């Protein structure tokens, strides 16, 4: 493990995470498309018995 990775985990989100904030030209379209893709992916989780799943998740409390 390098010293660099120990102390400076880098700026991942700054470099890669802000696409959706860019509102210029083609980027807007790309980011709107990305948002739609994301929501499509989420739909597939939510459409499979969301309420039944939620009710199934009952466990004794922890700490």
């Amino acid at each position, binding site marked *: 493990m390098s010293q660099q*990775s120990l102390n400076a985990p880098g700026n*991942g989100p700054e470099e890669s995470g802000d696409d959706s904030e860019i509102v210029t030209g083609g980027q807007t379209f790309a980011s709107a498309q990305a948002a739609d893709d994301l929501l499509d992916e*989420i739909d597939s989780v*939510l459409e499979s018995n969301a309420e039944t799943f939620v009710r199934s*998740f009952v466990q004794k409390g922890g*700490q």
Partner: protein
Amino acid sequence: MKRRVGGLETEFGLVCVRADGSRALEPEAAARELFRPVVAMGRSSNVFLGNAARLYLDVGSHPEYATAECDDWWELVAQDRAGERIFAELTAQANERLAADGQDARIHLLKNNVDSAGNAFGSHENFLVDRRGEFTRLPRYLLPFLVTRQIITGAGGVVRPQQPVGAGPAAAAPAAAADAAPEPAQFVFSRRSDHMWEAVSSATTRTRPIINTRDEPHGDPTRFRRLHVIVGDSTMSEVSTHLRFATTDLVLRAIESGRALPELSLHDDISAIRAVARDLSGSAPIPLSHGGTTTAIEVQQRWLDHVTPLADESEQQVLETWQKGIDAVRTGDRSWAATHLDWAIKERLFQQVTERRGIELGDPAIERLDLAYHDIDPAHGIFHTLQRRGLAPATLPEERIEAARTTAPTTTRAHLRGQVVTTATQHGVDHVVDWTTMRLTRPGSMPVQVLDPFTTALPAVDDLLAQIRDLGTESGPGPAPAPFA
């Protein structure tokens, strides 16, 4: 202390469902299936791993992972992430066994804090503090910080009317006030706030406190004690998890410095923590104990300003990130927070999904989405989906998280434990370890105790390692395999 050891304990939620969402296995049976490889390895559901972490099954069938001692908060985040990976691997294996067995059953492990019946479980932060410091004086300064830090590091979520609030004196639940109209479902910084019943106590499950006083130093009790903070949400974002430790460490350092401190004692910590959770503006007045009011933003800003002179070069990034978090609440501009902090990532996500589907925040689909956000399955968990799209932070390099699955932190006592567990496992030598003690399970074997968590080398441990190699069934160490991989 300038150098401080800390660790994070995460209790996971566990559910095993059929394809139609109905329950396939009770939590006890699902946990048994999940822990099969653990029991096969350690003959117990409570083991220490080669990365010096503890992996076990806790009260209420909650799988739990406790990171090794860390003195660097990014290392702690890496160790915590490694624990998620290890449990995700165990979950995948259990699901393969269930499928091979022809069962319509799939286990989900959720790094969250509350089930659908309102039972809560935790994410516990441990900080080493000096025994000589006045522990009784600490909460007075630390509590206002802990009550309000959820505006930065809360996991976000939705509270619903008539939702049961689990353990604790139910009559005191804020939503159950006799004449009040039911609250509509609303987005909050932290749902765990509703599960806090006391400021400071030794209780853990029934009347959960913000600071737990169970005195388990896991070290020399004449020098150290443990500060056990159990108010935190389980955070998926590495930025959020890092801030929980890095900011609390700075505040503790300021308290220990003996200098004058911000006097912000709140009139009622528990009323305040629930009000702060619900006030997304961060600017509602909170009564102070000596009259007057403050706000969540003010408490956080006062502490940030106060600790700024104490931060060293390596901590400048912490100060900047903390300020960005405060500003996101103060200004309402979420553009940074919505891709970095759990509560704001969720706030945006829930807004998009409610709009798209034409549903309210109280809809079960949103509760399902919240659970999916905390699902540690790297392929299907929604946090991971967001991460792949650059909509949630992936701060740590992948190699570093992978390394943390097998390698203990090198700058604390964990380094010694990690070497002993790894070497003993490679050589097939039976051993028993806990946080302070290591020994071989054979007659006449002397335990080696390490009471200083900053110790990274010890002749007695070298002797123990030599003994393991002599006894070993293998000729030499191979590469350390990932646990249960």
